[in-house]
Structures are given as C-alpha cells and as structure tokens.
C-alpha cells in the first residue's frame, strides 16, 4: 500500500432493499484489498413538525416554549432513528461476519445528510459502497437514489454503486474517453489492489481512429503493472447504449467510469452521461472521482 495510514471501505447501510448487497459488495472489496470495513448508518432526520399549529399567536415565553417543544420532538425522532440504525448495523454486521472473512469491522452512525457525512469521512476511506436505489426511492425501475447525484458530486473518493443482488465480480470494464480525467482514473486503478488479478476491459466509444487506438494503448500500458488480463475495445454508437451492449455481450460484472465531465449548466440543460448511466444501470458500477 502506498499510503501510510490504513484506508477503509465504507459501506453505507440504510433501510433499502439494497442494504444486503451493499454489505456483500463491501465485504468483497474489503477482502480483496485487505482493508478494514466500516459499516455506516447516516441519520438524516426530518426536522419538520408533523402537526401544523396555525394558531399564529405568540405570548409570554412562546419562544422558550417553542424551543423546548421542537427540541423534544427532535429528540424523540432522533432516538427512533438511532435505534433503527442500530438494528440495521447489527444486521449488516452479522451478515458480513457470517458470509465473509473480513476481520476488522467497525460500526458508525452520523447525524448529517449523506453527502456531508461521507465528505467528513473521505480522508480515511478507500472506497464508499452505496445502494443504487435508496430508502426513499420508489420501487419502480429507472429511479436513482434521491441523494446519489449530490453524493457523487461532493465526495472525492471512488464510489461503488450496487444493485439489489450480489454477484461476485469476476471481470470489470473501464469506460474510457481518452480525457485527462480518464487517464487519472486509469492511474488510480493501476495503483489499487482491488483490481489485481481481475480481467479488465478498456472500452472506448467512438469511430475507429488511429488517435483513439493510440490513447487506448497508452492506457493499457499503464495498467500492465496489475498483472491482470487486459482487453482493449473500441465500439461505435451512442455512449450509454454502446457501453451497456458491450457489457452484456462480454458478460462483465462491474463497470468503472469517471463522473460528471461537464459543467453544471450544461448538465442541467442536456443531462449527463453519468446520470443516464446511473438510471439505466443494472450491474454494479464504480464512479471514480
């Protein structure tokens, strides 16, 4: 390992259907990289009063009384949320210790919204594992966990997004566009123990040109150090469908990609490849930051 301090895998557990898969994938990553595993539950409590009081009057001591009432309400909710979180974490802990050989497992709870909680932890983290569909997302397909986009934007560590079912990843592909960000992604992968021995496909979408071939070869050279089998491919077509198609054809378990190449405004108007990928993903994917 390059870093002196021990980086851990953080599994974000919530009450969603993806929680067991999050545990399994996190355990897999933890075993593969020999990193400790942290099970994290973020208590993002609602702070809005349930019963509206529209009396609209204030009297002597109203402010103090209101503060007491709101604090009490929050306390009750926080207690419930904490307990709920304890249960979830205990379940997750039991699952991980039964099914895998991960020895170092810690449990953590934080009061925050998800994005800020993860940002606070990112210094000591190798990889975050999150469910693709969150607790509040409806069961329908095409629905990405509500906070995912904010999380991806604010966190500067790789994020593994997983579907509801676990299948041990046997091969992976990197969506490569030849950009500087993509090369940084390649370097990150080359440095990470996670990919040692995993067959890797380096996939680029676009017309077959000498320039693209050159970039792909350059990237492949950087990955040689991993000692795994590396396949290089160049597909034609639109980015998202082409990637999906290749993944299905080759039966690849895990997709790796960079996130949000374009500006906020452009994304607001046109949508982004990342968001489309998130929405259409059925297999786990890793977002590199």
């Amino acid at each position: 390992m390059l870093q002196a301090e021990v980086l851990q895998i953080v599994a974000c557990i919530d009450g969603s259907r993806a929680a067991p898969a999050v545990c399994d994938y996190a355990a897999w990553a933890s075993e593969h990289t020999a990193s400790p595993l942290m099970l994290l539950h973020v208590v993002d409590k609602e702070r809005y009063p349930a019963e509206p009081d529209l009396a609209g009057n204030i009297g002597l001591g109203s402010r103090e009384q209101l503060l007491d009432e709101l604090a009490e309400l929050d306390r009750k909710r926080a207690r419930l949320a904490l307990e709920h979180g304890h249960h979830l974490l205990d379940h997750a802990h039991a699952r991980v210790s039964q099914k895998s050989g991960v020895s170092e497992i810690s449990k953590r709870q934080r009061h925050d919204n998800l994005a800020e909680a993860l940002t606070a932890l990112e210094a000591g983290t190798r990889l975050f594992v999150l469910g693709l569909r969150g607790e509040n997302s409806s069961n329908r397909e095409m629905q990405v966990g509500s906070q995912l986009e904010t999380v991806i934007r604010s966190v500067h560590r790789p994020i593994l997004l997983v579907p509801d079912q676990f299948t041990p990843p046997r091969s992976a592909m990197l969506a490569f566009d030849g950009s500087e960000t993509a090369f940084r992604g390649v370097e990150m992968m080359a440095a990470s123990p996670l990919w040692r021995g995993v067959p890797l496909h380096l996939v680029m979408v676009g017309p077959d040109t000498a320039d693209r071939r050159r970039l792909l070869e350059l990237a492949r050279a950087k990955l040689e150090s991993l000692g795994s089998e590396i396949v290089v491919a160049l597909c034609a077509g639109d980015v998202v469908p082409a990637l999906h198609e290749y993944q299905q054809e080759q039966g690849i378990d895990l997709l790796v990609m960079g996130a949000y190449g374009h500006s906020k405004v452009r994304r607001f108007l046109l949508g982004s490849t990342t968001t489309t990928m998130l929405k259409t993903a059925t297999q786990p994917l890793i977002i590199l930051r």
Partner: protein
Amino acid sequence: MMDTLRKNWFSNIRSDLLAGTVVALALIPEAIAFSIIAGVDPKVGLYSSFCIAVIIAFTGGRPGMISAATGAMALLMVTLVKEHGLQYLLAATLLTGIIQIAAGYLKLAGLMRFVSRSVVTGFVNALAILIFMAQLPELTGVTWHVYAMTAAGLAIIYLFPLVPVVGRLVPSPLVCIVGLTIVAMVIGLDIRTVGDMGELPDTLPIFLWPDVPLTLETLLIILPYSLGLAVVGLLESLMTATIVDDLTDTTSDRDRECKGQGIANIGAGLFGGMAGCAMIGQSVINVKSGGRTRLSTLTAGVFLMILVLVLDQWLVQIPMAALVAVMIMVSIGTFSWDSVRNLRKYPLSTNIVMLVTVAVVVATHNLAYGVLAGVLLAALFFANKIGHYMLVTSEFDGRTGTRRYTVVGQVFFSSAEKFLDSFDFREAVDNVVIDLHQAHFWDITAVGALDKAVIRFRREGADVEVLGLNEASATIVDRFGEHGKPEGVGQIMGQ
C-alpha cells in the same frame, strides 16, 4: 443543484405555504402601524414588506426567517421624513442597502461574537417595549370603545387557539381582525380605521427612482440615517437568525444574510418602500406555524400583497384597534420572558448589561445605541473580572537577602494597579527577583507598571532581576502568529 433547490424551497411545501399565510397576517399590522410612526402612508410600509419578503426569500442566508418593514427601522426614519420628505427616505433606503451589502462582503457579521447574550436579551426586550410603545398613540385620547375593542382583540388572539380543532387550524390574528371589523361595521362605531391613516396600495409596486438631487448635500443628509438603519437592520437580522437557528437546529450563512438584507433594501427603495429587516416576532410565528424553508418567506410576501390588493375595499374598514391588538401580541411574544425569571439567578453584572441595553434603547429609540452601550459595558465587566485573575506571592530568602516575587495570571490595564500594589517597596532588601514565568502581560499598561516597579526597587537600593519577561510579554502582540495555534495557546496558558 436540484438537491439544494429542493431542500431550500420544496422540502416542506404544505407547511410552508400555510405558515407563510399566517405570517402575512402579522406583517400587515406592523407595516401599517410603523408607516404611520415613520410619517409616511401605509402604502410605503406595505410595498416595503412585500419587496423585502420576496427578495430576501431568494437572497437571504437564513431560510425560514421573515424580513419586512419593521418598527425598529421605522423609528430611525422619523426625523428624516419630517424634515426632508418621502423621497429622501427612499434614497436613504437605497444607501442602507449598499452599506449592508458592503458589510456582507467585509464579513462584518463576525463582529456579532462581541455581542454577548445579555446584550441580545436586552435588545430583544427593548424591541418588544418599542413595539408596545408605538401602539400607545392609538390608545391615548380615544373613547372607551377603542379600549374595549383592543381588549376583545387580545382576548380572541389568546383564547381562540384554545378552541378544539378549529383553534389550531385558523390563525387567531385573522379571527381577531375579521371579527372586530365586522363588529365595527355592523354597530357603525366611529373609531379610527386603516382607511383614516393614509393611502393604501392600489397596484403592484412600480419601479421608481427616488426623486432627489444627486449631490453631495443629499448624501450628507441621508448618510447618518442610512448608517443607523444599516447597523440596526443587520443587528436585528443577525439576532433573529440566531433565534431561528436555535429553534430549528440548523445553521445560517450570516454574510449572505447581510448581503441579502442589502439587496432587499435596495429593492424596497426602488419600488417605493422603506428600509426593513428581519422580525423576531414574525419569524417565531413562522417557525411555530411550521414554516422552515425559503418558500415560507416568499409566501408571506406574496400573500400580503394579494391580501392588500384584493381586499382593499375591506382593508380600509379594519379598525386600528384590531391591528393594535395584533401588535401587542407581537410585542408580548418578542419579549424574553426567561430574562425576567433569570434576573434573580444571574449575576448582577449580567443583569446590569441587559437592563442598560434596554434603558438606552427606550430612551433614544435607537437600538444601535443600546447595543453599543451594552457591548461596552459587557467588555468592561469582563475586563474587571479577568483582572482578578492575578496573584503575586513572595518569599524571602534570609541567607542571600533576596525577596522573590512570583506573579501568576493576567496583567493588563485593569489589573496593573493591583500588580503594583502587591510589591512592598518599603522593605529593605538587597536583591529582588520578579518571576513572570506564569504571568501574561497583555498591554503596554502592564509593561509600564513593571518598569515602574523595577525603578522603585532600584531607588530603594535593591538589585532587581526580572525572570521570564519574554514569555510573559509574548501576549502583547496584536496578531498572535505562532501563539494563535493550539500548541501556542497551551504555551501561553503556562502549560
């Protein structure tokens, strides 16, 4: 981006819309009442409340806080309006906004840390008293009908919420205003109504550049007022923000709030409104009614304008007594009841700071003076207290004829005299050692006192040795440099 938008605007839609409408009912009386006190038409206050509430909903740094035309600001404009007229008020409002935006960029909100809790409490209480006193003109030299109406209004406001189910769904100030208006119209009471107070809005506010000559003279007329308005506006806004922070267990962006208040005031000034700021009472009502996001503030402003424009025929019929009742409620709700109960529990110095703040405000009608007095007093009390943390011990070594003084604690202007008095200059000794390793010299007064002590000992024929002066005087430098770091603080504290 979508996520913040959702959080700041649409995470609590139903409650925010309802709370906003409830708050609008408490905004109208304040806007009307204080327009009259400022000496302008109610139109000016109502336009101002609309503009400020709507703009601050977008630009403010504290979601869920209510800002509009306020009493604290209106009281500062009285002489300006009397001597120079409405157009100068509008110009002063613009300048106020510019000053507040500048304060936002200069990050002056950080200065709020010097305003102690007792000063805040004093400010809040003084504000409550000012709001109450502002109602008195409506209650003096009037027939008993007005008293009866006001009392009935207050009774409705405080008793109606006790009615099961309906009491929690229908805002009691609304019941008060509607009820009293109907009664006054049915009986045909001859008491003052809103219509008697001056012009009310008949259209949406219109963009209007203040009609003042753009000269240095104008600037000199409005500048003192604008400065006062800017300071009071920011003080009340930041204090209200703290109150809303506490109630909702969230944080606010104070510098953004300063800039937001400035933009809102510029908007108000350009659309024929007077300067305003955040309102403690109405913000508490908003939180109590379930309002949390920017949407509640926006709703309050928009609903106020709709009410005023749609109901203008009815608005003029509202008896002033009904509005007085609502304002007395706001005044009572703004008052910090705890501060009265805590008077016996808190130390005398704290109470004095609070009471002086209140007294100065009530005497000058200017909250800025009250806060200034309170902050100065609090600082003096603090200096006095810290001055006690200084002790000089001494021991005599008969073998060498040495008197050794050990100074522990804080030496500065407040404790310098005590420091000097601790030395016995009349004692005849050969050697004097002053050990300052555990002392801190905070200013030049302290150094001066030490010099004095050394000279006096020398005059008595003793050899003086001062130990640890460098360490002790490290605290004099204004910018702490190395000492600002955690290990530096530990070093200074003598660990």
